[in-house]
């Protein structure tokens, strides 16, 4: 169990308890968090679940894959080092809490 804090675009905050194995996109969609869409169901191709990770406590998350970087890169001339696709961030054992800021980049 980990605590995920989403910071919405209006700077309000939503805290949700996440189980191991859940990802930040599905968790947000399941809980109706504004700004995360996950149109492709987590296939790393629609860029509708963009977050910036502000802090992590406990274990670390996996690094960005090449494909994830490619998709994120197009949105920024200089990619923020903490920019991620929520669908690629899976809650693993040891993670105590994550704070993720929602930055919806583009709804196409």
């Amino acid at each position, binding site marked *: 169990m980990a605590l995920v804090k989403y910071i919405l675009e209006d700077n309000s905050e939503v805290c949700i308890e996440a189980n191991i194995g859940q990802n930040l996109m599905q968790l947000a*969609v*399941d*809980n*109706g968090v*504004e700004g995360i*869409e996950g*149109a*492709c*169901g*987590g*296939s*790393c*191709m629609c*860029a509708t679940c963009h977050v910036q990770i502000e802090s992590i406590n406990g274990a670390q998350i996996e690094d960005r894959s090449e*494909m994830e970087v*490619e*998709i994120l*890169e*197009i949105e920024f*001339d200089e990619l923020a080092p903490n920019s991620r696709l929520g669908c690629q961030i899976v809650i693993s054992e040891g993670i105590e809490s994550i704070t993720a800021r929602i930055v919806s980049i583009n709804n*196409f």
Partner: protein
Amino acid sequence: MSVVIIGAGHAGVAAATALRKLDKDINITLISEEKNLPYHRPPLSKKTVYSEKPSCDLLLSEDYYIKNNIKLTRNSPIEDIDPENNCINLASKELIHYEQLIIATGVERCKLKMNGGELAKTLYSMEDAYSLSKSISTAKRITVIGGGFIGCEIASGSRKLGKEVTLLEAGPSILGRSVAPIFAQKVAKYHKSQGINILTNCKALSIDNKEVKTNLKIISTDLTIAGIGVTPNVRLATQANLDVDNGVVVNKYLQTNNENIFAIGDISNFPFNSETGRLRLESIQNANDQAKTVAKNVIAIRLNKQLLKYSPIPWFWSDQGDLKLQMVGIGNLNAKHHVLENQKKGTLTVLHFVNDQLVAVDTMNHGLNHICGRKLLSSNQRISIENINKFEGNLKSLVNHLH
């Protein structure tokens, strides 16, 4: 105030969630024939059927429907729609009233019409996927009939498990109706390199438990799977006197000929543009984007406001072995194709131009160019071959230049 949605696939569920986000008080009823909670369909042919312990990805947790006061009625076959009295008759004899109705009944798979056609397995629902995963795990030789996206996904997924796979395509090329010919050739070349036996211009004639007879040869097989397309599920719409022609005919606002009834998702036949005319798309993008449009239009009707036009940038994807295929836009037979290839990286991008204007982009293992393609097509600017050449085929530079 009540809105009823028939069908709890991607489109129906997305419409319910979009409506709820727009209006906290509206009554939303989502009627599903299926027993299961609504689930993601794309993984069925991309992942589920190759798994020893298949599981399915829910669209939303059960909690979501309860918390958001969306009445999800599962396992509820519908007798008919009564448009004169604005109500729906369930097979259970229950009656459900609506003010606005959204039909999202999707498609059903086509069955093979030939001797033994019923022996061929098909894949559409979660139940199909669970059953098919068992059949695939025990088969050694698998024959797939139909070289469209589903057929190619099943063939490549089965091949990855080490099965002997034969893929039959009645036309001259796999993916012949969907992507540029050069793109389809590269996909076919990849599948052949992985050991899939592709037979084109090959029509299955009859099937039994041991073999498939075709116009070319007889193929020994343990399992035959048909992926020969789908047909829109229009029974309810037809009974309700809605215009039906390759799906349910809707206007640019996704309204049927009955202004209180909308049709979205795979079933919706909508006007796209003057070049292409009408389209019926079977994709997640279309389901989600139509759902958002319909939700806004349902609210707009109530408030007597201007309705929103559905004008999509269509995109979809297919996972085949190690290939990630991503397509955006709608090409046509008159399109000229411009190829960007990096053989070393194994990437391919095919740009489709009609009247020297970019209309579609097919990419293989190139997520960046796919996203760029979506940006270019949604930029409302005319992109010509000259534009592409000026940036030496670097789509990202072109996108940045346009911004």
